């Protein structure tokens, strides 16, 4: 073992290497490691959050579905009820209309009957007058006996 200036040279070299390492090697690698660590942690947290949100969404979707089904069933029931009601109403309306038309027809018939009777009465009167004329020929003056005829007509 003999010591010489190599000792000093080594120390200087060592100090230089440590300085270089401290300045240009350690910080960039360490910061890259730290950043990556953070990135991974963030990614995992985000994944967890996403999973949780997915669960919530699935639950919500299920709820919505159930609600929609319930609503749909209710709507169907109501629609059926309404349809029955409408049919019922239509039936009633048809019946009423039928009755109304029947009544109108009957009224019409009655009116026609009256009118026919009236004209028949007139014709009978005319016929009676004509018959009487034929029987009496000269004696009877239509003019003078119009009052009598009218009275007769009213009695028929």
């Amino acid at each position, binding site marked *: *073992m*003999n*010591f*010489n*200036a*190599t*000792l*000093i*040279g*080594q*120390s200087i*070299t*060592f*100090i230089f*290497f*440590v300085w*270089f*390492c*401290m300045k*240009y*090697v*350690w910080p*960039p*690698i*360490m*910061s*890259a*490691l730290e*950043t*990556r660590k953070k*990135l991974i942690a963030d990614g995992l947290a985000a994944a967890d959050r996403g999973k949780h949100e997915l669960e919530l969404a699935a639950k919500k979707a299920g709820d919505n579905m159930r609600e929609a089904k319930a609503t749909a069933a209710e709507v169907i029931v109501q629609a059926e009820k309404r349809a029955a009601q409408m049919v019922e109403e239509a039936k009633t309306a048809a019946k009423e209309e039928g009755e109304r038309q029947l009544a109108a027809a009957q009224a019409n018939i009655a009116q026609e009957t009256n009118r026919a009777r009236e004209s028949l009465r007139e014709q009978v009167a005319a016929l009676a007058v004509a018959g009487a004329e034929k029987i009496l020929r000269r004696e009877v003056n239509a003019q003078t006996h119009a009052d009598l005829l009218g009275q007769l007509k009213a009695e028929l």
Partner: protein
Amino acid sequence: MATEYASSGEYIKHHLQNLTLGKLPEGYERHDHHGNVEVLSESTLTFAHNAQEAKDMGFWAVNVDSMAFSIGLGILFLFLFRMAARKASTGVPAGLQNFVEWVIEFIDTSVRGSFSHKNPLVAPLALTVFMWVFLMNLMDLVPVDWLPLAGSMVGLPFLKVVPSTDPNVTFGLSLSIFVLVLFYSIKMKGAGGFFSELAFQPFPKFMFPINLLLEGVGLIAKPLSLSLRLFGNMYAGEMIFILIALMFGGSWILGLFGGVLQWAWAVFHILIITLQAFIFMTLTIVYLDMAHSEHH
């Protein structure tokens, strides 16, 4: 390969000698293998040709191989990590970035586990210590003769390829860390606080000389044990590789046995080099943590 050397002792010595560049004084007598003596007419900057010359160069000499390999490995480490750092993104990492992030996470976990204060220096320091020491130790797995042989082909008399078997390297690391420990001790506790920690415990205040001695030894032991542990482990490991390599100079049966042994020791050594790098790093963190903490 060992046959090129006069004795196995010389082979081992050769492998344990650093390539030292330094100044030999005027009038220095250089002895070569053949016993010839050359007297230097003026002080010369040269590579040491043997251990004695390296010693005679005194303190102002440099182990060129240790410096070159350690700096090269350090640059390799910083280059790889810098590349990953530049491409660092928050996306899915691949290839090199994956590896680098794995190492950084490992260091970060260790630092968080052992260091309970806030200091932006400690984690990069730990990373540098771990990776650099690991790479230097890793050179131990290169077969002991390859690189020295290549070196001798380009005229280098010695080449010690594992920087962490050079105490200069391990002490260079541990003393730098020791300076940091002292700096943060004084910065966090104040000079008085640091002194009282050394002088007024574990015994009552009036026994402060004994306290000072005990705590002083404990303090000095930190860098000493840190560097000697790494050096000792690597040196011993390298020595065993060298001893195994000696077998390749014997008969083919011995050589075959040596090959098996080398493989087995190398596999085992993978554990040791990683462990030593880890221990060095962990103790660095712990010492710095102690420097930041009030009384333990």
